[in-house]
């Protein structure tokens, strides 16, 4: 235990120090040879990874297991800002199953991305900056998952937001990148505002930020919230529900749930490895993590919100999947698939129960499980896409095709990951997604149907992607410029990550999640529900088959179908015009309407009033000038009238 406690600060401190070091003096020191900065970053991060692995292993197999449930350790908790005696923001380190799991996910993917970037970002302007920001992001993400109190989470929440901003705007000379970065930051910021308000409401009633206090459960209630907030109403709604819904909105912003999803596709302007790390594997699941973290509160005190979350999730996953079918920019396809997969996780949480008796909390487990697996294969997909883009210098499908013979490693890993995400056994995605479907089935048939359909879509668009890239027809461009296999330091991460997806079926690995990661932290035996499993496999296969038919070879069926479903296709390919709506609201209404009006009001009414006062006094002074006429007798008149008037006044006073 001591070792863990002593090691744990490294996980936060080291990335932060690396950020400061690389950020402040990276450019100066390594001007001649930027790669050193990359190596330093990678080395530092591998240390972090080792430490997190060690801690996770120690926790899961040695320290964590309590009498019946896994304990929640607070390894350290330093007072950072004291607002009142109770409302204290601390920077701490909480170790419990989900945070331990997240440590592994983050450090793994981050390390892979670090290694990968050594090749991918080689020779880029601002290489040091890139690694500095990666370190910053790792620091922030780690701090987020190990947060001991909701405000610490909010702090690091903002930090991941800004590091995402910095990475998206990495190519800050490209206006599109800048625009995307602004969009990402502002949209998430907008959601964060709700998060903040939620925190305010919650802390106002419960008078604490501490997760342990907030999520403490006894006899079917999240005790604190229940006692403090039960029955509090605001405008006919339970305050608890409002608060928890607002907090969820925060999560929805980061996790790109509808209607906050618009930033994620644009965020692909950033360097591909960064997208893999932030916008596929880790940051975007922060919302899921948040809901999981507050799960007891949601489940016991705001179950209506949980239901809403379920339906939002379901809708988003469907919505995103449909769009993904029509995109031609491979990174955007992946982005939408990410949105849809994260929505899955939300659905899983929504359909989960709390106790682990007869698999009630299967959804919770499945959600975290899917989070894990998805992180791995989606990162792998992105990195693979990175290799491809690196090879053909384009994001567009049309620039690709038939690449399998040029870049076999990328091809294999990509295929594996596609199979995983499509939910084909024995790859990891199958298991996690299957559990989600089971949970949904047991809880709510509508959601199940929706998710099952989305599973099919997923399989379809992923393999559409796969076929378009690696099969389809030779692209004439390749004749004079042959795509080449990526360097080794880019391929290793692909291999590693794809390996992660392959061994879930082992009965050493398989029971890990059910045993260790459950809502009440009590493990249980999981046996597979074969009916649903088969159903989902079938759906997936159908999806793949359709993709096979349409995209294996170049043919006109896709256009024909697109012609059939014209309006659907068009609107889907325009992402259902959500961005345009946003643009209209922000540009026309808020900017053109409110801001301009206020600015005008300020200049002309408020300021005008002040100027008016000045003008009045000046005019007055000109109007009365003739009183001083220079004529002696008029002076005397004034004198006399003055005397009489004053006399009148004084006498009648």
């Amino acid at each position, binding site marked *: 235990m001591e070792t863990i406690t002593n090691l744990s600060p490294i996980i936060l401190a080291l990335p932060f120090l690396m950020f400061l070091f690389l950020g402040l003096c990276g450019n100066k020191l390594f001007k001649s040879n930027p790669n050193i900065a990359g190596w330093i970053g990678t080395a530092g991060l591998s240390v972090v990874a080792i430490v997190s692995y060690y801690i996770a292993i120690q926790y899961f197999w040695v320290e964590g297991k309590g009498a019946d449930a896994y304990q929640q350790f607070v390894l350290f908790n330093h007072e950072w800002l004291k607002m009142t005696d109770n409302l204290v923001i601390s920077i701490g380190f909480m170790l419990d199953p989900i945070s331990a799991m997240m440590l592994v996910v983050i450090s793994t993917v981050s390390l892979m991305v670090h290694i990968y970037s050594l090749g991918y970002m080689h020779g880029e302007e601002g290489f040091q900056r890139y690694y500095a920001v990666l370190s910053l992001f790792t620091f922030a993400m780690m701090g987020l998952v190990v947060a001991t109190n909701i405000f610490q989470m909010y702090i690091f929440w903002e930090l991941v937001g800004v590091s995402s901003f910095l990475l998206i705007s990495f190519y800050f000379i490209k206006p599109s990148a800048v625009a995307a970065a602004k969009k990402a930051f502002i949209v998430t910021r907008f959601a964060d505002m709700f998060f903040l308000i939620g925190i305010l409401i919650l802390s106002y009633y419960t008078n604490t930020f501490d997760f342990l206090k907030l999520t403490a459960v006894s006899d079917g209630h999240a005790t604190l919230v229940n006692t403090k907030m039960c029955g509090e109403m605001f405008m006919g709604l339970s305050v608890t529900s409002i608060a928890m819904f607002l907090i969820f909105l925060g999560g929805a912003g980061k996790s790109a749930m509808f209607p906050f999803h618009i930033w994620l596709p644009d965020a692909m302007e950033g360097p591909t490895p960064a997208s893999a790390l932030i916008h596929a594997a880790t940051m975007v699941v922060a919302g899921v993590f948040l809901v999981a973290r507050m799960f007891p509160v949601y489940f016991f005190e705001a179950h209506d919100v949980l239901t809403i979350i379920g339906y939002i999730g379901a809708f988003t996953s469907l919505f995103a999947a449909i769009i993904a079918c029509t995109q031609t920019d491979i990174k955007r396809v992946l982005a939408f698939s990410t949105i849809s997969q994260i929505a899955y996780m939300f659905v899983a949480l929504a359909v989960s129960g709390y106790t682990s008796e007869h698999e009630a909390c299967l959804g919770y487990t499945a959600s975290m499980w899917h989070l894990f697996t998805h992180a791995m294969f989606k990162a792998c997909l992105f990195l693979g896409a990175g290799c491809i883009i690196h090879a053909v210098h384009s994001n567009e499908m049309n620039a690709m095709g038939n690449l399998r013979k040029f870049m076999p490693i990328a091809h294999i890993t990509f295929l594996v990951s596609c199979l995983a995400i499509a939910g084909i056994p024995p790859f990891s995605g199958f298991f996690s997604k299957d559990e989600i479907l089971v949970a949904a089935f047991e809880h709510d048939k509508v959601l199940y149907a929706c998710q099952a359909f989305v599973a099919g879509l997923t399989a379809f668009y992923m393999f559409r992607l796969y076929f378009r890239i690696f099969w389809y027809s030779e692209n004439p461009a390749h004749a004079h410029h042959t795509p080449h296999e990526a360097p080794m330091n880019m391929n290793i991460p692909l291999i590693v990550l794809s390996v992660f997806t392959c061994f879930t079926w082992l009965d050493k690995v398989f029971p890990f999640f059910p045993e260790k990661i459950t809502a009440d932290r009590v493990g249980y035996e999981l046996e597979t529900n074969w009916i649903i499993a088969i159903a989902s496999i079938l759906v997936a296969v159908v999806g793949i088959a359709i993709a096979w038919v349409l995209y294996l070879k170049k043919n006109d069926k896709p256009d024909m179908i697109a012609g059939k479903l014209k309006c659907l296709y068009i609107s889907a390919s325009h992402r259902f015009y959500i961005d345009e709506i946003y643009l209209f609201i922000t540009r026309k209404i808020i900017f053109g309407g409110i801001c301009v009006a206020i600015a005008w009001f300020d200049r002309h009414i408020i300021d005008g009033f002040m100027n008016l006062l000045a003008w009045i006094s000046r005019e007055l002074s000109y109007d009365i000038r003739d009183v001083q*006429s*220079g*004529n002696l*007798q008029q002076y005397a008149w004034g004198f006399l009238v003055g005397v009489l008037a004053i006399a009148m006044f004084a006498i009648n006073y």
Partner: protein
Amino acid sequence: MIPVEAYLVVSTLLFFIGVYGFLVRKNLIGILMAVELILNAVNINFVVFNRFLYPDHLEGYIYSLFVIVVAAAETAIAISIIINVYRKLKDVRVDSINELKN
């Protein structure tokens, strides 16, 4: 005998005649004379008050004497200044001295 009010009426009339003169006369000398009327009204007041109301002191009489004296001095200066004006402007009408205004 004539009541005190009568005198006061006279003096008040005189005062306002003087004021009127000051306000309407166009000639500086005339204006000066109007001032004299005002002062005389004042003198009447003092004398009358002293004589009728407070006969046991002489303050009113004294005062009126002083007023007469001061008035003389004032007139002297005023006349000389008016002459000065005449030298400068060849004119002693009040309208002629409104260079300084506003």
